[in-house]
């Protein structure tokens, strides 16, 4: 459900953001971007274009070399440690490299995200079951994450990111290892979170199948520079250029 961009205050705002990895790798260059509450945004671009970097900047795993980043109205360059911690509890991130604990079970991996918010065991248990059912992983609940296939690990990472019903979900290449059926499950999870929970969702991907027919905004990174995606569906042209 795209919002009217002109009246809402953006949930995430980037103003002329540049990220240079030492010594001189320009990963993101002069990017300005507003992401509105309740929006689903697709971030595309070739490998090495800077998608992951942009996502890390938004959850403050990286700090920008230049420019301003605000999340929920808070300037990330002037935020306390406790502030970062609170923010991260409300942002769900599915990392491109999953970042799961291989020796712990699927249940434990997902539960961790909720335990840090001191959710009760009962609530955690119910939520994990729900997410596993949505992602068709129910029979893997007590398996160690390290014993799963890449595609299963990918969905566990997504489930963990979605566990707290985050107001912002950042999904980095969420369907890279998935077949069309599993991809469909993931898209449905996004839709579910977005509609039921009002979550804002940013999906970094180079899988055209998941954004080809979308009615949501698609942006493209090219060598660190951001632009609107060139090949837009008639639906998008109708929505964003009218």
């Amino acid at each position: 459900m795209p919002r009217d961009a002109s009246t809402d205050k953006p949930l995430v705002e980037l103003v002329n953001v540049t990220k240079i990895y030492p010594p001189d790798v320009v990963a993101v260059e002069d990017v300005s971007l507003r992401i509105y509450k309740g929006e689903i945004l697709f971030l595309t671009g070739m490998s090495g274009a800077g998608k992951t970097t942009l996502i890390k900047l938004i959850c403050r795993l990286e700090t920008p070399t230049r420019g301003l980043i605000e999340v929920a109205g808070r300037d990330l360059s002037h935020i306390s440690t406790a502030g970062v911690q609170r923010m991260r509890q409300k942002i769900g991130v599915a990392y491109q490299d999953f970042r799961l604990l291989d020796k712990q079970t699927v249940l434990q991996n997902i539960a961790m995200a909720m335990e840090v918010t001191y959710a009760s065991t009962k609530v955690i248990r119910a939520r994990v079951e729900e997410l596993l059912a949505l992602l068709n992983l129910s029979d893997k609940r007590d398996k160690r994450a390290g014993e799963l296939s890449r595609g299963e690990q990918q969905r566990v990472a997504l489930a963990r990111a979605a566990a707290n019903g985050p107001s912002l979900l950042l999904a980095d290449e969420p369907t890279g290892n998935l077949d069309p059926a599993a991809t469909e499950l993931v898209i449905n999870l996004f839709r579910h979170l977005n509609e039921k929970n009002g979550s804002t969702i940013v999906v970094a991907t180079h899988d055209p199948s998941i954004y080809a027919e979308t009615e949501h905004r698609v942006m493209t990174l090219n060598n660190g520079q951001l632009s609107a995606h060139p090949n837009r569906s008639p639906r998008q042209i109708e929505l964003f250029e009218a």
Partner: protein
Amino acid sequence: MQFLAYILRQTGKNLRQTWGTPAMPLLTVTLSVLLFAFFFLIYTNMLRASARLGDDIRLIVYLDQEVTAQMRPGLEKKIRDFGPVEKIVFVSRSEAFARLSAQLDKEKDILNDLGPDFLPPSIEVYPLKNLNDLTKISQFSEFLLTLPHAAKVQSGSDWLRRFGYFTNLLRVVVLLSGSLLIISMTFIVSYTLRLTVLSRQGELEILRLLGATSAYIRLPLLLEGMMQGFLGSSLGLAALYFLYQYIASRFSGPGFLRLFDFTFFPPELTGAILLASIVLCTVGSLFSIRRFIRI
């Protein structure tokens, strides 16, 4: 509530995951508390014993001539002028003889041949209690030797001095084992917690990504340190208590323990040792947490 439940659960999990590691500091804490408390117990008992012995210090000046009633006030003034004295008792030959025969009771027959004059007259000087200082006592006895007709001064201070040396030596041992206790506790606890932190590095990194608060990450480790302090010192003190009980029961009757009326620490002191150990171990865990956990 949920917060507390989590902290406790996590602490339990840490202990289970690295069971071999916390057993080591526990043993170290137990042994250092045992060692320290052992010497400290002996020391406190020695102190009490010497205080009690100090109570009945008296200096006896043996004279080669009887002191007449007219001489007494002069002598008494001379002694009191030198130092604070609680009381002065003049014992004549016959009084000394009467005392001895009273002490011998039924066997006083053996005195018959000696006659009532064989014991020397004496002056018994009881210094005030604050004169416990051994050097002052020996000064006092040197002075008493300068009194007219003084033949010999008996103070028992030689024996007291040796006792004092021993108490001083014990104080050094207590201080040494106390420092050992402090060092071993803080070091061992912070060292093992560092191992715990390192073994959980991956988990801590992900907790950081998930927005875990500092308290969430640190409190379980802090609690682990506190528990090691509590359990370790309880075990050490319990071991010492049983040792004490064992020795007391084996050596009951007249002997060393009876002489000193050996007792265990009062509850307050036991509590203080326990508390100190907990504080030390907590400080130790704080060190490792501060140094090794990046938020």
